[in-house]
């Protein structure tokens, strides 16, 4: 019970009533149940408030992760818990050419898509930060790729990339840019690029809207002062906007890298990992092994192979964010 509540209030109108009320306070305190008294202890209360979060994290994050690690060390198949194998699954996938291809694809996919999303997202955010007629409408419509369910929008892209009926090919052909059809998803050299384009299209609004929010926190007076000092638009961006936006950019990039690295549905819908494994990512290959073949242990190993790589990326980014914030 706080000191303020115990302190007697002297004098003033209604002093007698107040005094009577106060005399009851010690009795309230003594009548507190053991639970209430326990909750008065901040350490206990803090622990209890944390319990739901810890339980949720344990159930939905820690348990699946630990279970996944365990599965990857066993010969588990669907309906069969299997036996402990140690690192055999990891050794097997390490020598698997399809896994090697999937690992290469995942890095290329993540790197190019992240740079693409960041560049275009920043550009879009800078444009949308200006005042123009219909700004709200444009801002809202910009979110569409992000709002529409990925499977749905990816099917639309699949149609646009259709080897026979591609609207892109039709347009390019009718404007005289091409003479033969482009195999957007059928040509292995094109397929990964096409899939990356769809990822950039889908992920760019996330960058744009977050960076736009960051841009709006930048004090316009800084830009005005710089402009008066003769700074060019590029200098103002590089010397003012970019440094101030860097912490937000790093956080957005961190989330995006994690999501892109573990992407599944986009590739699954567009190519299923083909042609000839040209677009397989860790997630699609893990699904193929774990679900289609029923080799849960090996599938978990493919899936967890992402972990150390993601871990390193995340640690570097978090370290950098901390450094930037501390500067």
């Amino acid at each position, binding site marked *: 019970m706080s000191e303020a509540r115990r302190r007697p209030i002297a004098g003033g109108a209604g002093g007698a009533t107040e005094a009577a009320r106060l005399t009851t306070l010690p009795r309230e305190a003594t009548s507190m149940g053991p639970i209430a008294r326990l909750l008065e202890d901040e350490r206990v209360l803090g622990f209890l408030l944390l319990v739901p979060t810890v339980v949720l994290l344990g159930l939905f994050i820690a348990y699946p992760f630990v279970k996944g690690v365990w599965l990857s060390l066993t010969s588990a198949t669907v309906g069969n818990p299997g036996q402990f194998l140690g690192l055999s699954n990891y050794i097997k996938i390490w020598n698997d050419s399809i896994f090697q291809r999937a690992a290469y694809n995942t890095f290329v996919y993540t790197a190019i898509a992240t740079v693409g999303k960041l560049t275009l997202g920043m550009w879009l955010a800078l444009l949308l930060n200006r005042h123009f007629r219909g700004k709200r409408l444009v801002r809202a419509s910009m979110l569409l790729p992000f709002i529409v369910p990925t499977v749905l929008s990816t099917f639309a892209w699949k149609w646009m990339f259709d080897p026979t009926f591609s609207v892109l090919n039709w347009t390019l052909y009718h404007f005289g840019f091409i003479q033969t059809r482009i195999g957007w998803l059928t040509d292995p050299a094109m397929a990964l690029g096409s899939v990356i384009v769809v990822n950039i299209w889908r992920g760019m609004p996330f960058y744009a809207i977050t960076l736009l929010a960051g841009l709006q926190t930048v004090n316009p007076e800084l830009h005005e002062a710089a402009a008066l000092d003769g700074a060019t638009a590029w200098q103002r961006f590089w010397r003012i906007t970019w440094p101030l936006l860097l912490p937000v950019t790093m956080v957005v990039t961190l989330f995006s890298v994690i999501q892109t690295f573990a992407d599944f549905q986009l590739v699954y819908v567009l190519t299923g990992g*083909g*042609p*000839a494994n040209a677009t397989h990512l860790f997630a699609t290959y893990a699904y193929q092994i774990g*679900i289609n*073949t029923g080799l849960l242990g090996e599938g978990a190993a493919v899936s967890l192979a992402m972990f150390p790589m993601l871990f390193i990326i995340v640690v570097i980014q978090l370290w950098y964010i901390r450094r930037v914030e501390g500067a």
Partner: protein
Amino acid sequence: MDAEGLNRRKFMTISGAAAAATVGLEGILAARQAPAHAQGTKLHLLRWNDFVPAADEVLLKQMPEASKALGAEVTLERINANDLQARITAAISSGSGPDIIHVLKNWPHLYEKSLVDVSDVAEATGKAQGGFYPAMTELCKVGSSWRAVPHAIVGGQIAYRKSLFEEVGAKEFPKTWQQYREVGTKLKAKGYPIGQTAGHTFGDAPVFWYSFMWAFGGKEVEKDGRTVALNSKETVESVKFAVGFWKDACDEGGLAWDDSNNNRAFLSGTISATINGASIYVESLRNKDKYKTEKGALMHTDILHAPNPAGPAGVFHLHAPFSHAVMGYSKNQKLAKDFLRWLHGKEQFEPWFVAQKGFSVGSTTDWEKHKMWDLDPVMLPYRTAARAFRLYGYAGPPGRAASEAESKYIITDMYAKAIQGMKPEDSVKWAESELKKIYT
């Protein structure tokens, strides 16, 4: 005995339980009473969304009949075929889910330990209907026990445009792959190539490329199921032939086609032939006025079907087999088996089979003789399609290793890599090394 005068316990003891336990469905029917299961017992059947909606409608109508016959509520859930394995994996891992699941391909081997022995149902069904095709027995019988009851086979045949083939001088469908390539070359020159996928797609890619490899004498493994036998003269020849066939006769955009691309291409008139279940023809019948040839004729009048051409080793087909499995976690295993006995019985299977119009054929040989085949001569090649049915993993058993090889698209990619420019010998070596990691 007046049934109304019985209490529930007596009813269970005397009529239903006894009848069902001793003589199965025959007992149920003879007793003219629904067998008693615990009140509110439900049986959950999970199947794919059939490509022939009329057949699903037959099933939906049969569910209340089954409920009445079995004294339990039977429900049918349908999902996309591509999602079945994810559902099975989740159901087995959690130990709960549908009592009966529609299993495709060689899944009875994959999930063997989680499926109930249904030998009694399968053997009785096979015996009553002329015997299962050998491939269906191999797929559903794991060791000495049946882990699923074969239901039907979606046959794969080549759908082709009669008028286009005639225009290039082919009065009948080519008998050999060499003839097919020659005809296809002429067709491609006219702007109507053969359409075929070499992509990572569920049905058409393995259906075509496994059959192609077998026709040339190639095989994954020896009979022991362990010795990889892919890198042979026959396989290399088949890959070399495929490269030329693709360049000369095929639509080169097919490298990443899914199972619907060839349907769309065929129905829009951009390809002249493709391997397929009868879905192209069925769709052209369903929307007759929508699909027309370049001369304005109704497309369905210009479609014919033919089996694969012969290679040096013969004619083979990898079809799409469908079976029903009772899940090991089900609390209603007895009821589930009774239901399957009922569903696979001639009386119930027939309306479903007729509704399929040949898209799916029976898993037993008796259905080749059904009068349904007199209705549409275009569908006739499907009648005996299952006779040339060969399985993944040939010449070994269609077990988990065969499944892994198939789900990794190793055979399909062996051809796809060569088509993309890899030396045929190298693509075969690559596939061989991948198979060795799986089989040994």
